[in-house]
């Protein structure tokens, strides 16, 4: 508890301190809820930026021989689309949810290190602005979101045998990623300590809400995965500016080293992007099915299993580079294995809904949409684990389809499920239900129009990242269809922002517990006070707020956990 000395001079106007002004309050805040909101606002701002880039890509590819973008600008746009969506939208938004919700869920009054928390947010914001400022210099990163060597190199042999990027483009990527890594480490440490040390009395590990579980696993993944990306980025900067040759084959370096270092971060990263969404779905489904979650222990520990296994699968991104057969066999097997804990989750979610009194409110619609879309993306992933098949579709639109089903159909649907679910707690207002339903159906149709046909396009051999294509390859109709779907997604997102605006202005008051929910974050006002809980709650089961509302049939009377 902080003690502040405030000088009061009755009758004389006291000059307000910086943190008492509106801007200063946000600039200097260390309150986890305000920081969470800032993360989410920043994430949605970059979602708009990344979405505009996606629409530019789809406009360019709508018809053969498109002339909307030049080849060079197209490279920058698709690279920044990936970087923005992954590092500046999904990660900050999920961190924002974690910041706002996790301390409330575990009955804590703030994060363990509030100022470190604020620091992590400001680094993300500045890194995002830094990365996007590259457009002003006409030098946005252009080597793809995974920025392969030697494309990212700057060497004396540039322009001869070596493909490279002589401008500042890759420097923006490398420095931006380093900054974002600093932020992620700060945030992850904070989550781990908060979750392990600041839970309310009685909230044992086995009683933690599943969103908290998945946030903890994600935080550990970040802590262990980021060092390889940081190391790769530093080595690359040394190559580019101090004349080392870590990734230059002609000087004894190894471009594949980049791929190994990147993907040993990059594949855990996929789970960093999806596990918190798993957690959100695991909170939404039971509340809107009026049942406890089915298979809590399996859902929690399958998340841990996914976390461990995610470090053993990275080279499935590299089957086509010529790995030895034993390595291919190993990574194909481990990739297939990871489907098991993932399927465990899906079966448990379905069992949660099965037999429940299902209420198809917008959070539930997005949660169900998540399961269906993620399932398609997951099955694509299992197909890509088959090495000969992977050879055929490597770097085609099949892979683009797979990753978008996982990250858009999965993570983004999860984010919207979580947002519609927790927005009443964050703002005190309900989002408009009808506009939410319009958004959901537009998104569901849009996702499938855009991304399903990419499977076929990939099988027809359309490589990813080409900026245009001739009109006689049989790709025209599918590309046009995808562009129509992408614009439909754009309209859906506009509906969302319209809903957000009118609901914040004149939305229906939510009350403290609009969904008759089970977990502690609902056991306080909406929005919560600065100190979260007047009295720190005591927990006796996995549904502490349900117990409080239903003392006669409380879970702790019958449950053994």
């Amino acid at each position, binding site marked *: *508890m902080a003690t502040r000395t405030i*000088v009061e001079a009755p009758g004389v106007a006291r000059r307000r301190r910086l943190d008492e002004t509106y801007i200063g309050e946000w600039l*200097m805040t260390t309150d986890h809820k305000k920081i969470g909101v800032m993360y989410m606002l920043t994430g949605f701002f970059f979602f708009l930026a990344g979405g505009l880039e996606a629409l530019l890509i789809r406009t360019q590819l709508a018809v053969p021989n498109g002339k909307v973008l030049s080849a060079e600008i197209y490279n920058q746009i698709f690279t920044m689309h990936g970087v923005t969506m992954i590092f500046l939208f999904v990660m900050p938004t999920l961190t924002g949810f974690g910041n706002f919700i996790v301390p409330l869920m575990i009955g804590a009054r*703030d994060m363990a290190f509030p100022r470190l928390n*604020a620091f992590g947010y400001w680094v993300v914001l500045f890194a995002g602005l830094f990365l996007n400022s590259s457009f002003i210099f006409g030098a946005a990163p252009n080597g793809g979101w995974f920025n392969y060597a030697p494309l990212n190199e700057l060497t004396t042999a540039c322009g001869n045998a070596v493909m490279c990027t002589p401008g500042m483009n890759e420097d923006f990527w490398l420095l931006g990623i380093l900054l974002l890594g*600093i932020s992620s480490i700060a945030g992850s440490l904070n989550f781990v300590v908060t979750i392990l040390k600041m839970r309310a009395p009685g909230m044992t590990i086995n009683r933690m809400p599943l969103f908290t579980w998945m946030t903890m696993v994600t935080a550990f993944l970040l802590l262990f995965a980021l060092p390889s990306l940081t190391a790769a980025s530093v080595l690359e900067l040394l190559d580019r500016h101090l004349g080392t040759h870590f990734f230059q084959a002609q000087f004894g370096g190894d471009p594949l080293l980049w791929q190994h270092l990147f993907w040993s971060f990059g594949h855990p990263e996929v789970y960093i992007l999806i596990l918190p969404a798993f957690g959100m779905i695991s909170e939404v489904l039971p509340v809107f099915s009026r049942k406890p979650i089915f298979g809590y222990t399996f859902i929690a520990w399958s998340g841990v299993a996914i976390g461990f296994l995610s470090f053993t699968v990275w080279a499935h991104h590299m089957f086509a580079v010529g790995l030895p057969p034993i390595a291919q066999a190993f990574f194909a097997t481990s990739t297939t294995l990871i489907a098991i804990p993932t399927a465990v989750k899906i079966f448990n979610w379905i069992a949660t809904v099965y037999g429940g009194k299902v209420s198809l409110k917008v959070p539930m619609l997005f949660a169900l949409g998540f399961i269906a879309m993620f399932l398609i993306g997951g099955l694509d992933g299992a197909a890509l684990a088959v090495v000969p098949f992977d050879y055929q579709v490597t770097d085609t639109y099949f892979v683009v389809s797979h990753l978008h089903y996982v990250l858009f159909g999965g993570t983004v649907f999860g984010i919207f499920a979580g947002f519609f679910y927790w927005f009443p707690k964050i703002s005190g207002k309900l989002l408009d239900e009808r506009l939410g339903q319009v958004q959901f159906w537009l998104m569901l149709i849009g996702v499938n129009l855009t991304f399903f046909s990419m499977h076929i396009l990939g099988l027809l051999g359309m490589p990813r990242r080409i900026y245009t294509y001739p009109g006689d390859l049989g790709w025209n109709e599918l590309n046009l269809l995808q562009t129509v779907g992408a614009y439909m997604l754009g309209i859906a997102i506009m509906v969302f922002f319209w809903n957000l605006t009118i609901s914040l202005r004149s939305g229906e008051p939510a009350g403290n517990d609009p969904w008759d929910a089970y977990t502690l974050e609902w056991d306080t006002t909406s929005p919560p006070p*600065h100190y979260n809980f007047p009295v720190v709650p005591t927990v006796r089961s996995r549904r502490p707020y349900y117990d409080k509302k239903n003392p006669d049939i409380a879970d702790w009377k019958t449950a053994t956990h």
Partner: protein
Amino acid sequence: MSEEQNPSPQLPPKERPAKAVQVQVPGPQSSYWPFALALALVIALIGVITNLIVIGVGVVLAIAAIIGWGLEKR
């Protein structure tokens, strides 16, 4: 929790001396050092692609921010 005696109520308001009050705020105290340190780090890294002097400025600012953060009254 006043630290001083109440001033005389007969004095006109503008002449009454200031009163220091300690307020218990449940929750962490706000701080501008996290913002300052983040900004300093970005400046230092911008220096990598612009000018060594900019790196120096960023590092100095970062050290100042770390010291300020460490010495800040909590």
